[in-house]
């Protein structure tokens, strides 16, 4: 992730690369969010992700700053759970997704947040995304999780928070931009898994809830 000048760019231009992982219950729309962000596409019907998909997307924060995300889009099914640490272990940031029309999906999201805060990189930036906003716009009765509740939880846990719709692309770009802005552009970290494989047991002390003040961008 070392911040470095992009070749051929103006002097002073900054380029940073970050690892991002998406987690959340199955069928909440993780892949849809990523594909909206990376390819600006959306399918109403999407097959479940098998294993995990690896994608990249580059965004410009301002004239001189470019951020490249290396994204792990993980499958939400229970049986893939044991593989999750592999994807979040060196992640600089995470998007934990729930479905605002499914109450149980927020519980699952909370347990992912807990796991990330206990096990992942201690400086990890976590964003909570309540997806499928379009369903609620059409039919307010479908909402199962009030915005205020999720927002309060996000503030308490120190998370970025957005309600998104991969379908209408509402708040998708905003979500990733907010993450990029919160990431420490000048702080060097392990470039990627290859450069710093961290095998076996991680003996670093746990970092309970050292998540900064948790600016909520809503």
């Amino acid at each position: 992730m070392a911040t470095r000048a992009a070749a051929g760019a103006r002097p002073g231009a900054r380029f940073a690369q970050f690892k991002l992982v998406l987690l959340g219950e199955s069928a909440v729309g993780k892949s849809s969010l990523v594909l909206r962000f990376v390819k600006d596409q959306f399918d109403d019907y999407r097959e479940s992700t098998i294993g995990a998909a690896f994608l990249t997307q580059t965004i410009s924060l301002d004239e001189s700053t470019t951020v490249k995300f290396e994204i792990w889009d993980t499958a939400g099914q229970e049986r893939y759970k044991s593989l999750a640490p592999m994807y979040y272990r060196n992640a600089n940031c995470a998007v934990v997704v729930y479905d605002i029309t499914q109450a149980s999906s927020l519980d699952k999201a909370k347990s992912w947040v807990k796991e990330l805060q206990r096990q992942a990189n201690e400086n990890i930036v976590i964003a909570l995304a309540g997806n499928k906003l379009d369903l609620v716009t059409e039919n307010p009765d479908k909402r199962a999780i009030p915005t205020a509740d999720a927002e309060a939880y996000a503030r308490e846990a120190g998370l970025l928070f957005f309600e998104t719709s991969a379908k209408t692309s509402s708040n998708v770009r905003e979500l990733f931009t907010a993450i990029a802005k919160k990431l420490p552009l000048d702080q060097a970290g392990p470039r990627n898994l290859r450069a710093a494989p961290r095998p076996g047991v991680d003996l670093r002390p746990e970092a309970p809830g050292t998540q900064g003040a948790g600016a909520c961008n809503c």
Partner: protein
Amino acid sequence: MDSTANGPAQNATDAGTDTSESLPPSLPRQPNSCSDRESDPTPEERPPPLPPRPNTLRLLDEGGASLRTARPGAPTTLQSRATTAVSLTDIGCHDAGKENHVVREASETLRAKASLNHLTSSRGSETGDTASIRSSVPQGDLGDVENVFGDFVATDTGPIRKHSTGLLQFPEFRADDVEDDFASEFEPVGDVDEEGEHEEQVLERWKAKRKHYLILSAAGKPIWTRHGDGGLISTYIGVIQTIISFYEGSKDPLRSFSAGDTKFVIVTKGPLYLVAISRLLESDTQLKLQLEALYMQILSTLTLPSLTHLFSVRPSTDLKRPLQGSETLLSTLADSFTKGSPSTLLSALECLKIRKSHRQAINNTLLKTKVSSLLYGLVVAGGRLVNVVRPKKHSLHPGDLQLLFNMIFEAEAVKAGGGESWIPVCLPGFNSSGYLYMYVSFLDLRGEGNTADDTTTKEESVAIVLISANKESFFELQDMRNAFVEQMEKNGSIKIIKEAVDRGRPNTTDIVPGTVLHHFLYKSRANVQFTMSSYNHEFSTISRRRRLMSTYNNLHASIHAKHTHVKVHHCVSQSSSSFAWVTPMFELYCVAGANANRNALAQSASKIIEWVRQEEERLFIIGGAVF
């Protein structure tokens, strides 16, 4: 019943045999199943160490993991003495004979007339045995069963029987001038709404399907069904479970039975019952292989130890949850069987036809860029193998590749991910007790970039598949992929693959100008690979293709029926004449129009053989690259 008993003996045989084709015919091939692998350590969490494999240098070991039982009559029983070369026998009838007395009687009359008793007598006894519904189920009293199912088995056999001409009653798929509803076979039956209002309708649509697959647990919990959902069909699941358990209880498992022209085939695998219900005139063996492939898919998702564990802890486990998300893999696999898959029928793989030197060049590039954690490296174009590299001691199993190709090319889920994929997958033929990790990315053959866009069709998509036993090796394999693709760009291999993909399969008329043949399948037995002509024109619709496959199914079943001594088999039906030719080297199946001249058919067939011989090193991967 005896399927597992053969396991160990058969593995031993494989280890010592160079070509699996030379197995004694008395040893039916069985797919690798649980009990074959008792010697394997069964660590449940860690990726398993690579188990020792039969020390074979062959590219594709048809061995223990092959998806089929070997044709029992092959090759040692193939008699070298003269046969009635091209013979109009009733062999094609034998499937129908199993199902229907009337047809069998008709064919018996003919059999006498055909004076080919030396050919048919040995089969005759088999037909006789199985012709009675009662005896096709070992010691079963089918009277009850038939009644139980009487109300949901559609008994209208339609045009098949009505069009009788007094000629041979060759069982075939509906005549295709009758515009057929086969395409709707794959449409969803719909949902029953909360008040249960549409249940009748939905059930009607469900019953109209000509092919069903049901998987349930021994405790009677529905696990997966191709059509409808567990709720809709729970009563049928209950009935089936009761019937199967009844025979299980008497230590004599029920394997198949027929009701009208509907065939039921049951495969029991540990805690799972797999049931196929078909009105597509498929043989018991063919349906059994299909069910075993579905079972392999379940193992591929869960691994055998974890499947066993789930049920040993709680026999009433609901397997739906652990399998969640893999239902599409089962469905696409099932649909490929229902549509008719030459690969499954022949238990062989198809390769992309390119020059030997070109293939060599790609192999060398793969070997040059190989990283230490690589186990298998494959280049696959739309389900056709382009290249494979593998360790000397490990062969690849057609059944495993079938699962991989299904996942990568049929199920869309991998491609829909839109990027590179990293997938834990158990290859049951390789080792059913643990996961391997598979890196998949698609090549863009059209544009500038290196990843395919979404408009690329299935046939056109080319995947780089790199498999490792190390779950942390994604980035290593990604580097390898990038280096490999870069090299291929440089040495022109990408262009070669693209051209070969664009060229597609040849038409029969490209090979033999003016031939009567519409289509052919050629299997090279030694290479466990096949090649075929294009489906163009004649077989462009899904129902026509299904009919073609049914013809092949029949040819294949006839020629591989127990105790046959048939080398050449000619069959004329309402809509086509077909021809099979089997030697220890190859199997050729071809189909021509109904009125095709027999000699012309035979001549074209030999020309095809000649062509394959000339092109052999391009059509097939011979040897493959090892490290």
